[in-house]
């Protein structure tokens, strides 16, 4: 490249970095200087494409929020909630990006790539917490929350714990959910199976569950339970509920596999017995979250979450309800939901992101978002509000999930948590549930693999 070209290129690089040139102008000028179009676009991305840190020259913060909010809720969120936030915070431009599939590796790649589209916030499960904290990507969310005691005290304590790692709050709960048992009431009536209580302390036991599956499987063309084959993360998450109901723990705080002990063996043996006795049918592989086998009447019971609310309210094929997981030693469910992660790009963007977090934790947001999406509010006042209580009265099946919240068992936030779930799914769940492998041996293998993943 000759010196005149070099000077011209330096000039336009300087202008794009300080926001004095638009992206289109940059590409046109770069090509005119002599770069190929590919090189021009690559250079634009490397320079940040207008703003390297998300700030513009007039002090307005532009923050990028990556999410996988389902389409119907996403439209509502953008049109009704983000507009309110924008009016209250005119110095903040929140740019949402729909990821499509909740894959934390995409977020990691975006963080590493940097540039103007790097994430400032992300809607993700809590399992990524440890990895982000170890990489020093998370600002002092704990300090911010302590300065807002009204907000902190209003969040359900179990969710504050879920949001914490190494003793500090590292992310903020956006919405919570869990899974519970969807039951086909018409099939229950036909098989003369009593409908379990929606009170987790009084709901069915494991023996009653197995008996129900047996009777329901005697109905023509139906099996008792839709056994999930959802891919390692889903299967491991649902297993947390079964294991919790048997008094067990999945992973210790130090990262040791606790699922291979007596409680874990008993739990997997129970689930395997349902399969061996012919009381179950399977979901499609990697689609354990897909309740179509239940919708089409192939199984009378399935475990799934409240995010399906928009579909459930329109479902008229048969009568249904939602009840808690059967208990063995105690009631339990698996706490899930999505957190708002804030990333430490620069102070202005962190402040803007926390402004959004404050709005997100408000009653107005929590009630509106969760009524629309079917998920559950993370704050106590929103849950107890007249509007939300009216919503629960209108849809009584929601109590199956809401009542389970205090008994929720959370997933680990350790950096290797996702890998542990994969190891459990491939080495224990699939062989035991799908192929009838020996429970103790398979769990032991999965435990060895899990322990080898400790950093």
């Amino acid at each position, binding site marked *: 490249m000759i010196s005149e070209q070099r000077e011209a290129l330096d000039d336009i690089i300087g202008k794009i970095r300080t926001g004095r040139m638009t992206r289109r102008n940059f590409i046109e000028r770069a090509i005119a200087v002599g770069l190929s179009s590919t090189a021009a676009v690559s250079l634009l991305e490397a320079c940040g494409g207008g703003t390297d840190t998300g700030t513009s020259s007039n002090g307005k913060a532009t923050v990028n929020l990556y999410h996988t909010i389902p389409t119907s809720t996403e439209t509502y969120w953008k049109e009704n909630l983000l507009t309110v936030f924008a009016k209250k915070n005119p110095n903040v431009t929140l740019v949402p990006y729909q990821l499509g599939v909740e894959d934390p590796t995409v977020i990691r790649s975006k963080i590493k790539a940097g540039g103007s589209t790097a994430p400032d916030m992300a809607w993700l499960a809590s399992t990524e917490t440890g990895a982000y904290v170890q990489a020093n990507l998370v600002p002092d969310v704990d300090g911010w929350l302590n300065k807002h005691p009204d907000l902190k005290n209003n969040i359900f304590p179990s969710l504050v714990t879920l949001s914490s790692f190494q003793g500090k709050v590292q992310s903020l709960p956006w919405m919570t959910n869990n899974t519970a048992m969807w039951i086909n009431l018409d099939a229950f009536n036909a098989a003369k199976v009593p409908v379990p209580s929606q009170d987790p302390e009084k709901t069915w036991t494991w023996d009653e569950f197995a008996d129900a599956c047996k009777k329901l499987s005697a109905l023509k063309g139906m099996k008792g339970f839709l056994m999930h084959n959802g891919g390692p993360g889903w299967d491991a998450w649902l297993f947390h509920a079964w294991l919790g109901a048997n008094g067990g723990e999945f992973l210790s705080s130090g990262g040791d596999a606790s699922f291979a002990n007596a409680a874990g063996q008993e739990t997997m043996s129970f689930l395997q017995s349902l399969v061996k006795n012919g009381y179950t049918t399977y979901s*499609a*592989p990697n689609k354990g979250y897909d309740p179509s086998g239940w919708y089409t009447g192939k199984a009378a019971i399935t475990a799934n979450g409240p995010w399906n609310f928009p579909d459930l309210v329109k479902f008229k094929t048969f009568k249904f309800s939602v009840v808690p997981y059967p208990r063995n030693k105690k009631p339990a469910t698996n706490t899930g939901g999505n957190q708002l992660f804030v990333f430490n790009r620069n102070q202005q963007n962190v402040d803007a992101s926390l402004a959004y977090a404050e709005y997100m934790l408000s009653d107005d947001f929590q009630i509106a978002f969760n009524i629309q999406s079917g998920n559950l509010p993370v704050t106590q006042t929103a849950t107890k509000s007249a509007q939300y209580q009216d919503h629960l009265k209108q849809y009584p099946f929601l109590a199956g999930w809401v009542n389970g919240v205090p008994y929720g068992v959370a997933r680990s936030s350790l*950096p290797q948590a996702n890998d542990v779930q994969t190891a459990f799914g491939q080495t224990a769940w699939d062989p035991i549930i799908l192929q009838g492998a020996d429970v103790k041996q398979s769990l032991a293998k999965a435990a060895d693999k899990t322990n080898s993943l400790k950093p």
Partner: protein
Amino acid sequence: MAVQTQKQVKAMTLANKPRGLGTSAILRQLQAFSFTVPALVLLAIFLIYPIGYVIYLSFQRWNLLGNPAYIGIKNYNTLFLHSADFFQAIGSTLLFVVLAVPTQIILGLYLAVLLNEKFAGRTFFRTTFFIPMAISFVAAGIVFERIFSTGSNLGIIPQTLANIGINFPDWEHRSGTWAMLIIVLMNTWKSAGYSMIVYLAGLQSINPDYYEAAQIDGAQNAWQRFLYISLPLLGPTTTLLLITHTIGSFRAFVPFFVMTNGGPAGATTTLIFFVYNNYANRTGVASAATTLFLIAVLAITAVQFLITRRQNVYY
């Protein structure tokens, strides 16, 4: 006959002598080379640099966040000593390659031989067998999964067989071998059209005089003409397809991701899938697996090339 003088012989020798490295020759070489520089730059950026970076990462501990930390050959130790799933992935990959490559080539050759003959509707059939190439692997995988599904909503094939009392193997949940066979079936359906087109081009480039000569020499039937003329002369075409299909099969990812997600119980988790599963949380381990994979594929390709080059027939 004119006797050449010593002077004439010297002049002829000088005319035929290879040109030395004079200044003008060097400048001509540089000029020619400069035309390849843009391509070499692109090659360096998009091929050599990424390969080098992956090899570098194979000696680091990293999870895409923060900075990589050098740990020597620990990632390779992890693979060889602590990763049973790595060896399972190698086995699955080799099984897929051994099954998929011959079926695509043999079916492609069979279709090409059939469709090389003139008959009514030949163009229609050529188009029909080529259309699967235009469909994405994602779409094809989803459709095949639905057709052969053994989940709560049975696919049309298992349902039809169940109606006549035949149990279709539960490839989605129980049988890893059948899962691999179904994936190979989809892959062959999708890819045989490419082999067919390449073989058709090869067949049509064979001089018809060879077939006439073969007939005169005693090759009376079509099978003999195919065996002794077409097949040997298609040697270079077969070499090309063997190498490209082998590399493609080693690199296959989408069919496994879409149809089985690597299951049941990791039975269809190939090496690329193993890398995908590990690249975010254990980037170094994934990079080590990729490096070993690169060396293996290069070695296999070199062996294939050497073997088939000796056997190819050129007239």
